[in-house]
């Protein structure tokens, strides 16, 4: 099966002169459609930096990232913007919803950017909100939702455009463990039922255990890449 994401020899350095931090060093990862991958590691290990490079929000110092056969590292800002809109879904730690839009409007925002007709957009988003368990909460603003509900809206927004890949940066970091578990179950369900590819950063063992594959980063290098059971202690 063709890879949906290829990370080829990616390195990222911060700083100049004598003070250079090697945030990522020679990273090689390949994801195929339907993967459900957790990326773990201590703070500063390079998880977020790698997610930002995959999402086209940061340029690597070396190497390249290919999504759907297109080299992200060579794209213009406008092309990157379109790529993020059409092919990548994002779930951030928290406060990732637009506070002045309702749950429904937040979820449909990307579809609106894509120019989907209102009726089709609404139909699709209502179905997704139903899938993520937000029936009856469509017209609530983020401030009227719990943290877990907000993350469900964020997940709905991330998958609404049927992206090739969903990137989630510590999606359960700011919710309690029960809610975090439920969110992971939801993402896993979407992965299994809809075949959506997920790559998420986490430092929680419970979350790692729910992944099909676990990549562990340390000091910007991959120290392990395999099934969660095999690598969990290394994290």
């Amino acid at each position, binding site marked *: 099966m063709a890879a949906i994401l290829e990370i080829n020899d990616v390195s990222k350095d911060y700083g100049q002169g004598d003070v250079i931090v090697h945030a990522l060093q020679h990273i090689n990862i390949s994801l195929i459609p339907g993967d459900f991958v957790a990326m773990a590691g201590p703070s500063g290990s390079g998880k977020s930096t790698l997610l930002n490079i995959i999402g086209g929000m940061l340029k690597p110092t070396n190497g390249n990232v290919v999504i759907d056969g297109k080299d992200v590292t060579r794209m213009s800002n406008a092309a990157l913007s379109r790529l993020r809109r059409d092919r*990548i879904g994002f779930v951030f730690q928290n406060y990732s919803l637009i506070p002045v839009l309702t749950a429904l409007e937040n979820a449909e925002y*990307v579809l609106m950017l894509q120019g989907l007709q209102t009726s089709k957009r609404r139909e699709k988003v209502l179905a997704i909100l139903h899938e993520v368990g937000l029936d009856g909460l469509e017209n609530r603003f983020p401030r009227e939702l719990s943290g877990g509900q907000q993350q469900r809206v964020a997940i709905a927004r991330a998958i609404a455009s049927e992206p090739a890949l969903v990137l989630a940066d510590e999606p359960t970091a700011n919710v309690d463990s029960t809610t975090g578990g439920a969110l992971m179950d939801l993402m896993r369900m979407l992965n299994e039922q809809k075949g959506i590819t997920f790559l998420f950063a986490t430092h929680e063992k419970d979350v790692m255990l729910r992944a099909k594959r676990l990549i562990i980063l340390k000091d910007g290098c991959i120290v392990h890449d395999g099934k969660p059971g095999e690598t969990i202690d290394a994290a």
Partner: protein
Amino acid sequence: MHEQDSDEMISMLSRLAWRSVGRNKRRTIITVLSIALGLTFALFFITLAEGAYYQMIRDSVRMQAGHITLEQKDYRDAPAVDLYIKNPGELRNRIEALPDVEETKLLILGQGVARSGNGAVGVAVMGIEPSVEAGSSPLAKKIIKGEFLADTDDNLVIIGSSLASRLKLDLEKKLVLTTSDANGDLVDELCRVKGIFQTGSDEVDGFLVQLPINFARKLFTMPEGSATQLGVILKNQGKLNSVLKKIRGMLNDKDIVALPWREVMPELAAYITLDRTSNYIFQIILITLILFTIFNTILMSVLERRREFAILLAIGTPPGQLQLQVLFETIIFGIIGVGLGLLLGGAIAYYFRVHGLDISAFLKEGVTVSGFAMDTKMHARITAPIMLWSALIVFFATLLLSIFPMRRAARTPFADILR
């Protein structure tokens, strides 16, 4: 993007902008009030100043030779009574038939010496049509002793209070006017004081003698019906150029010219231009200070929402769309602020239009401009162009201010903020 898509986008942007504006009410109130107060101050000063200029022009042209003056083409270079219009009657009738003309008036302007038993003073001698001037000339309303002139008055004059004081003249007292007539001969006429006026301007009160035009013709040995000037008073000063063009088209005599008041009273025109310029500079400084407050609040509203913008950019919002959102928010601020400013400023201007603003307490000596005493009660002048231009300038200045915040929003370093 299809038309429907762009409509959808505009609708979403409007919703985002409107709700963002409503989200931080205190910031919105500060911004809207800043815009409204800026426009209110601007309207207050501009309408008062324009009202003062309007009054000055209105009074000056009524006392002198009208908004448009017809005279011999060489008169301005070397004013003399031999440069007169022989038969202005027919031209006058045609001009009076123009719809924008309120009235016309004949004048004879000359120089002379007024003598009494107590001295002599060089004076400006102005022959007027009393029945025309009585209703419109500000001088007719400034009589402090005696009466204004009548058409039938013979050898009667009105003089200013300062001249009366210098020559120790009072009502019914005699004075002799000595002048050169249209033939160049030295002539004397004995006349009596019918009235004494006081305008507050020393140039007018101390050196002007008015007399009925028939008496002036006799004094200067000029033919029946002649005048050195034919003045045209307009119903609306704004129609000056169009009426001037029409009148110039009527002139068959190449020796007669039609001049706008600006050329006849250049000192007054220069004063108004200078004062208006300094007033605009003051307005610009005032509005710039207020715009700085507005700029601050708009920029703050962008900086406060860096995370929100970062997320929008991260999920694929084109930077241009974020700029549009900030622009929409500014447009909302602008529309509400300018609307409120027009209401407030308009109401204040209307109050001072009706009741006037008495500044005599600050100007005890009075103010004279080019020999014309300014009325110390200023009446604001509200016109559609003043309201419209002030509103548009404040509105577009506010929009200009959003350029930097717009760019900041579009250039939000989203990777750093979301890390």
